[in-house]
């Protein structure tokens, strides 16, 4: 390949800027990890630093002592994420496909219907009353899957835009002339060509599920609910416990209680442990991005 001087400069500049960005992104995570292996009292005395005075794995030892709870929470989170994301992507892509067709009757109406949900919100209490009263999801795994994250209007619109701009409708017409039904068209044309956006949206949907702690907070309670805690619920419980005791004057009676709560370093350790699985999966997902690129090349 002949590389012009212009191209070489672009490559160099790109690498420099992107390396800077990478460092800016990675640094906080490094700090997070280091503070999780910093000795507790050092952490409180000297604050967080890249080169702490004293190291200690006490936080991780504390966590491994609770390994049962934590592994269980991982399991729940993984199941919820996979199921939720799969459902999310299937129904989102089908809806977006419909909306991307130029001639669909009532298209504008339906688009508005979808968009409106992004703008108006009844609030927590009505949602809660409905999910617990009518659908009775309290203390079930559906409590973590159903509310809120199974669909996102923003994702639907973005997928639609992608279909619209990247897949020429001529392809649909050609397939229909050949006798394919709409569903076949969807399976054989839309899904493969839409891979980049679907993987991307799937990733976002999955991350939303992985990071969510509100569904657990609102719909799981008591001992039976605890068995269904996701890893974020676990972390959130610890952190908000600390925060509550820190900001409530009634807590002056609770000095002993506060002393029992996992320390600052354990907070960091749990946060790190919560991220780890996803960080490990990223490289594997890259493969699908590459495929998308390849598809785009072939399409021409």
């Amino acid at each position, binding site marked *: 390949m002949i590389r012009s001087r212009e191209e070489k400069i672009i490559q160099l500049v790109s690498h420099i800027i992107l390396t800077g960005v990478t460092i800016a992104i990675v640094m906080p995570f490094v700090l997070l990890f280091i503070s999780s292996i910093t000795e507790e009292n050092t952490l409180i005395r*000297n*604050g967080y630093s890249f080169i702490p005075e004293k190291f200690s794995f006490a936080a991780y030892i504390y966590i491994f002592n609770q390994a049962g709870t934590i592994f269980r929470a991982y399991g729940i989170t993984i199941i919820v994420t996979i199921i939720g994301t799969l459902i999310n992507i299937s129904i989102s892509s089908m809806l977006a*496909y419909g909306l991307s067709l130029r001639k669909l009757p009532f298209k504008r109406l339906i688009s508005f219907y979808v968009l409106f*949900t992004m703008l108006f919100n009844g*609030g927590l*209490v009505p949602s809660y009353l409905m999910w617990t009263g009518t659908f009775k999801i309290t203390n079930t795994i559906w409590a973590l899957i159903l509310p809120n994250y199974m*669909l996102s209007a923003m994702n639907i619109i973005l997928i639609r835009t992608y279909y619209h701009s990247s897949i020429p409708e001529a392809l649909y017409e050609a397939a229909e002339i050949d006798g394919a039904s709409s*569903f076949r068209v969807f399976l054989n044309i839309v899904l493969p060509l839409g891979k980049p956006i679907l993987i991307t949206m799937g990733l976002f949907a999955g991350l939303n599920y992985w990071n969510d702690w509100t569904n657990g907070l609102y719909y799981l309670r008591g001992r039976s609910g605890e068995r269904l805690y996701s890893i974020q619920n676990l972390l959130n419980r610890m952190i908000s416990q600390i925060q509550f005791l820190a900001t409530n004057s009634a807590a002056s009676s609770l000095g002993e209680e506060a002393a029992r709560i996992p320390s600052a370093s354990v907070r960091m350790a749990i946060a790190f442990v919560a991220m780890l699985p996803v960080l490990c999966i990223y490289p594997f997902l890259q493969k699908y991005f590459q495929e998308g690129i390849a598809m785009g090349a072939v399409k*021409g």
Partner: protein
Amino acid sequence: MPEVTRSQVTVKRKSSKAAKLKRWLPVYIMMAPALVYLFINNYIPMAGIVIAFKKMDYNSGIWKSPWYGLKNFEFLFSTQDAFIITRNTLLYNLAFIIVNTVCGILLAVLITEIRHKRAKKLYQSIILVPFLMSMVILSYIVYAFLSGENGFINNVILPLFGNEEGINWYMEAKYWPFIIVFVNTWKNLGYGCLIYIATMNGIDRALYEAASLDGAGRLKQIRHITLPSLKGTVITLTLLNIGRIFYSDFGLFYQVPQNSGQLLSTTNVIDTYVYRALITLGNTGMSAAAGLYQSLVGFVLILISNLLVRRLDPDSAIF
């Protein structure tokens, strides 16, 4: 093209209504699950908007509680802070939209330009990593940098510039617009960026080859092929963000500044104001009123913007 008379067209339409249904029904069926979910998850609870106009008594339930007119909305406007929180909310969101779009496009272009396969993979993964860090944890990290006594900036960076005393970051409101925009970009850049990359990957390679044969250099190719292809996506994302323009990321404005009172003039937004106001009151009517206020403004703004976009580029409008 041969001329088609009006009557011919009309006849054609009337007779194909049944055919139309047959044609489109499968598509509607495919769209149904999502539409049903939206109905259940979003539309049914919308009925709860009435809470904003009621003095709630849960013993009577939502429907039988007494009406309260607009009184639940008073606290949003009767305060001197009303102007500050509205200003802050709007300005921050505008800044976020602009900064994130520009930086997102820039990074997306750079990443797609990289030829070294492994580096490209690395960069593409990296930009998503900040999503994994929750705002609470991020606030501790920011604290590690900005802490008065032990912070990285005060102890390491500033002395390099000759400032030995350090700045009491959590007490000085004027720095925080920059800090907050920076933190927000750090965390949320990946979202737009990845969508742009996906869109760019969908561009026909043939276009680039053709341009290259015509003698266009790389930069020209980017300007004339890549950027225009992003137009639709950028407009869509921006429109969607305008709809949320009265909402803020609570964690970003409450946890990251560590809820420090001295910073309120530049960090208090509508969501944090409402939270602080209601934390001792436990009044669902008032919080519903705040939510409704935010939704209405977003709704009006998005209608207006969508109309404008429809004039300029009909295909990019959302509806």
